[in-house]
């Protein structure tokens, strides 16, 4: 089709009318867009006329730049599209002008823009989501603060890897630390730096809130690190952490606490339930009852109610032991044992005294009390027999018993060897050599016995005092002197008569 030649004026008018027509289309489109809600968080701040035309009418046009500015004004991305006809190249300066027109002056990613523009021009494809400018966020100001080592805030749980089971008796909600354990680190203050939006507006420095944590008892700070100064329980409460030499357990020792093994004092407000072991390097206080379990403490043991045992129950206190009653258990104390209402069928060994309350009774069992016994009543009319031993160190006696048992085994072996020599002879001399060895072993054992006996500390003034009644068949021994009560006696004191070496009573 031949083109009609237009005069310059006609040409100008025609082109102007086209332009006006295009503009009116664009205006309508912009109006329509403005009426519709924008689903995107980001708002489209500018579109060129050609963009709209291209999108809505698919009318080819010059290159276009579409900017997308984040609501926080910290980021601007762009989408650029080439001239469909390939006639007009996109210019980076136009791009910068576009940014400038939108007020974007800070954090412009010039290299990114140049590369995107170049690619758009050369490949003729639209490129979207180009990060063209980004603001500088402020660096927050953080005051000096203390950060606790994370593992201390997570109670350890022991898992049996083979069976993939948790032993809940081994599980503890408490965190125990050794002296010298790193507990926390001091983080120095961080000074803030203001930020800037892509519009160049300064963003003031904010002060970051950090929890205030302070180190308390039994901790020491060295070079910004905070360490435990004692073995104990790590306690963190109300912003303060410390190492407590006391472990307070509210309630029972049970599956919620697991076994207890603590390097300081342990304070239990409830019971120690059956099967749960408690070991305290310091003192142990149990407000209620100790059920069959294994208990050991390095200082005194105080039980508000009783110690109820079975054959498996073992209670050892290196200091004094105080409780209301003891029943069917093994108890050992480095200090004295004080039982308010009584001891029933228990084995009690103490290096101090064993005493009951004014009306307390000892029925059955064996009491070894180096410094003597004081009870309201010993034995009953029909009850089990009771044995009381005083004046000697039970620990030495138990070692002597151990040696004796080994010696008896050796002596039996020796008899067998001697019988063999007599019956079958010993031409090689090997049995004779064995006999010699056994005799040497017995000699060593006897030497050890003699040594222990020579150091056996005897308290000849130890006495057994009974305020009410001591019943027949009660066996009393003071410093190896024996006495068996054959009739009921009241308000009596048994002592060792040093002259006769026998027990007398008054």
């Amino acid at each position, binding site marked *: 089709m031949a083109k009609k030649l237009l005069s310059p004026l006609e040409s100008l008018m025609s082109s102007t009318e086209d332009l006006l027509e295009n503009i009116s289309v664009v205006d309508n489109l912009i109006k329509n867009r403005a009426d519709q809600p924008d689903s995107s968080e980001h708002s489209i701040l500018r579109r060129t006329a050609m963009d709209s035309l291209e999108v809505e009418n698919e009318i080819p046009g010059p290159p276009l730049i579409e900017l997308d500015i984040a609501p926080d004004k910290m980021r601007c991305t762009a989408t650029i599209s080439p001239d469909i006809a390939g006639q007009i190249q996109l210019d980076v300066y136009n791009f910068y002008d576009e940014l400038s027109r939108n007020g974007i002056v800070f954090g412009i990613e010039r290299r990114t823009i140049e590369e995107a523009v170049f690619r758009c021009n050369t490949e003729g494809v639209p490129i979207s989501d180009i990060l063209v400018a980004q603001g500088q966020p402020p660096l927050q100001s953080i005051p000096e603060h203390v950060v606790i080592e994370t593992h201390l805030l997570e109670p350890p749980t022991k898992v049996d890897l083979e069976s993939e089971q948790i032993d809940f008796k081994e599980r503890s909600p408490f965190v125990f630390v050794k002296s010298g354990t790193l507990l926390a680190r001091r983080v120095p203050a961080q000074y803030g730096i203001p930020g800037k939006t892509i519009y160049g507006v300064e963003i003031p420095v904010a002060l970051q809130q950090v929890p205030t944590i302070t180190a308390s008892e039994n901790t020491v700070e060295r070079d910004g690190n905070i360490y435990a100064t004692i073995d104990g329980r790590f306690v963190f409460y109300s912003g303060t952490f410390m190492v407590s030499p006391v472990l307070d357990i509210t309630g029972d020792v049970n599956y919620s606490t697991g076994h207890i093994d603590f390097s300081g004092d342990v304070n239990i407000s409830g019971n120690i339930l059956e099967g749960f072991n408690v070991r305290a390097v310091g003192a142990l206080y149990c407000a209620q009852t100790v059920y069959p379990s294994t208990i050991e403490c390095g200082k005194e043991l105080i039980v508000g109610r009783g110690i109820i045992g079975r054959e498996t129950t073992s209670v050892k206190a290196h200091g004094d032991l105080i409780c209301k009653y003891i029943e069917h258990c093994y108890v050992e104390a480095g200090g004295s044992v004080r039982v308010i209402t009584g001891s029933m069928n228990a084995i009690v060994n103490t290096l101090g005294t064993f005493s009951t309350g004014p009306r307390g009774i000892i029925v059955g069992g064996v009491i070894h009390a180096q410094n003597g016994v004081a009870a309201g009543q010993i034995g009953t009319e029909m009850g089990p027999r009771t044995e009381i031993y005083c004046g000697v160190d039970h620990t030495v006696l138990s070692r*002597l018993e151990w040696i*004796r048992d080994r010696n008896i085994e050796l002596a039996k072996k020796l008899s067998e060897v001697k019988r063999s020599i007599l019956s079958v002879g010993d031409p090689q001399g090997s049995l004779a050599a064995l006999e010699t060895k056994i005799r040497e072993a017995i000699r060593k054992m006897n030497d050890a016995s003699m040594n222990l006996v020579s150091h056996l500390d005897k308290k000849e003034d130890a006495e057994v005092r009974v305020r009410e009644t001591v019943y027949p068949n009660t066996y009393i021994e003071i410093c190896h002197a024996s006495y068996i009560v054959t009739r009921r006696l009241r308000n009596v004191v048994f002592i060792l008569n040093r002259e006769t070496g026998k027990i007398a009573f008054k």
Partner: protein
Amino acid sequence: MAKRVLIIDDEEMVLDAVTTILEDLGYEITPCMNPSEGALRAVSEPFDLILCDLRMPLKNGAEVSADILKQRPDAKILIITAYPNDPLAAKALASGVSGLIKKPFEIAKILEYLKE
């Protein structure tokens, strides 16, 4: 001169073992399984200490001790018993034995009585 100890016990194994151990300690031991024979030897020979089992089938330790003490009131006798509050042990103590030792034996007590 070694101190002499008479042991009267019907259990051969225990008797042998105690004899071996005490001999090694330097004592002269006379073991005796028959209680009557033991009592006879106790009164006819000098012993520094007599250890006598309490429960024996032919004659109990309380009777043996009483027999010995009748003729040798100064004899030092220790009764060996599994149960110190055995009524027979009380009887033996009443008859004048020096003391009781728990089975099989208590070395500390034996040494102490031999020291005296």
